[in-house]
């Protein structure tokens, strides 16, 4: 059982997850650097699958590298680039290397990336992919062909509490729960009222305690990333007063940090919330400060001892 699954299903501890940076050139060397920065803080780290529709080192290869570096991967699987056969192959491939956490996403459209001429696949959608993961967990491929023994899997999904239609988003959570999702990472939401309503909705639907809600927090150094997200990331709206607050501050970096901390504390206080997902644009040196301010103590760093693994470069 993965640490993430253990903490979420056997304890009431708050969990922290993060996003592994996408890997390109010098992958293994970079992976080690990223792992050293994250290790000891997180219960699971997303091995991303072509983030924002840009090609990178694959989700499966990243997850395997993370395992070797002592991090617990959460394998992201998106629907944009691969059909159901390829998705099953990736899930099985990762599980062969001991990956146990899986995260199903619909995924950004190809138009969000830098190869907008590519064919979009979307053979399955997000909720269907969750169900496919449950099928594999039960020991079958989609065709019904047996997988013996069935891989051990802890399945999650993603939802955006900040995009319309707001009331309907909770029903999508119910759908994903019914398909087998046990945890739900949320997209970043700069409207506290929307997050509050969403979490209250999850509780009122009787889903608190059934699916662990994990809102996202983004570490930023100033107003620029806020503007960037507001203007360029589909489904993310940042209220003008939140941008102005950072822009007009005497020390924008400090104000940005305080804003992030506030959002983190606010998110943790919502019903059905079991933890936080922490992301950043570049290596942000406030990670340690945020984790400490949230009362987290860093666990021993394990990547050093894994240095002699068989697959090192």
């Amino acid at each position, binding site marked *: 059982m993965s640490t993430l699954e253990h903490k*979420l*299903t056997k*304890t*009431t501890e708050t969990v922290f997850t993060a996003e592994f940076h996408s890997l390109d050139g010098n992958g293994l060397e970079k992976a080690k650097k990223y792992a050293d920065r994250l290790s000891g803080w997180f219960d699971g780290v997303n091995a991303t699958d072509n983030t924002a529709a840009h090609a990178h080192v694959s989700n499966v290869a990243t997850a395997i590298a993370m395992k070797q570096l002592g991090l617990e991967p959460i394998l992201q699987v998106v*629907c*944009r680039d691969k059909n*159901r056969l390829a998705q099953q192959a990736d899930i099985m491939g990762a599980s062969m290397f001991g990956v146990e956490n899986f995260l199903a996403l*619909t995924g*950004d*459209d190809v*138009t*969000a990336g830098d190869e907008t001429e590519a064919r*979009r696949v*979307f*053979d*399955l*959608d*997000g*909720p*269907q992919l969750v*169900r*496919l993961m*449950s*099928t594999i*967990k*039960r020991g079958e*491929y*989609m*065709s*019904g*062909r047996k997988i013996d023994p069935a891989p051990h899997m802890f399945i999650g999904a*993603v*939802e*955006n509490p900040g*995009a*319309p*239609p707001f009331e*309907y988003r909770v*029903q*999508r959570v*119910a*759908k994903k*729960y*019914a*398909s*087998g999702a*046990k*945890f739900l990472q949320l*997209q970043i939401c700069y409207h506290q009222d929307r997050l509050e309503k969403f979490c209250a909705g999850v509780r009122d639907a009787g889903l*608190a*305690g*059934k*699916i*662990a809600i994990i809102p996202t927090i983004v570490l930023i150094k100033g107003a620029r990333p806020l503007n960037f997200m507001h203007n360029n990331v*589909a*489904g993310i709206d940042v209220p003008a007063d939140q941008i102005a607050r950072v822009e007009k501050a005497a020390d924008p970096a400090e104000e940005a940090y305080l804003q992030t901390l506030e959002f983190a504390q606010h998110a943790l206080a919502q*019903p*059905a*919330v*079991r933890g936080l997902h922490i992301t950043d644009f570049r290596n942000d040196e406030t990670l340690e400060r945020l984790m400490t301010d949230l009362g987290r103590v860093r666990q021993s760093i394990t990547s050093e001892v894994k240095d002699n693994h068989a697959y090192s470069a």
Partner: protein
Amino acid sequence: MTTFIATIEHVVKGPVWGCQDCGQCVLHSTGMTCPMNCPKTLRNGPCGGVRENGHCEVNPEMKCVWLKAYDRTQGWPLPLAWKEEYNHLRPPVDNRLKGTSSWKNFFTKRDRWTPAGWKNTTDESIEVGHN
């Protein structure tokens, strides 16, 4: 004959509902809004990219198909059973049916076929803690 029915269906449903001939019609359960007009062909609700004004992530000129479907399901005088079906988990598209008549597939129940692995597997035994 089969092609003939498919042609009639296309002529009728094309202009009115923007039918994409998937051959497994779910219009009744989606507020008479064809989900195959979603650029991502999602069949189970909107993606996370819906814009603040309710328009589509991919095509900013177009209202999100799923917002339309939601509004119509709420507002239109559709049969209650259809409205309830809005929240059902619709199975993956059977790509073999593309271009065939969904009317015929409905009457022959061909559109009800799902792969053997597509069963409900909710694992209620595992609960997560909460605050």
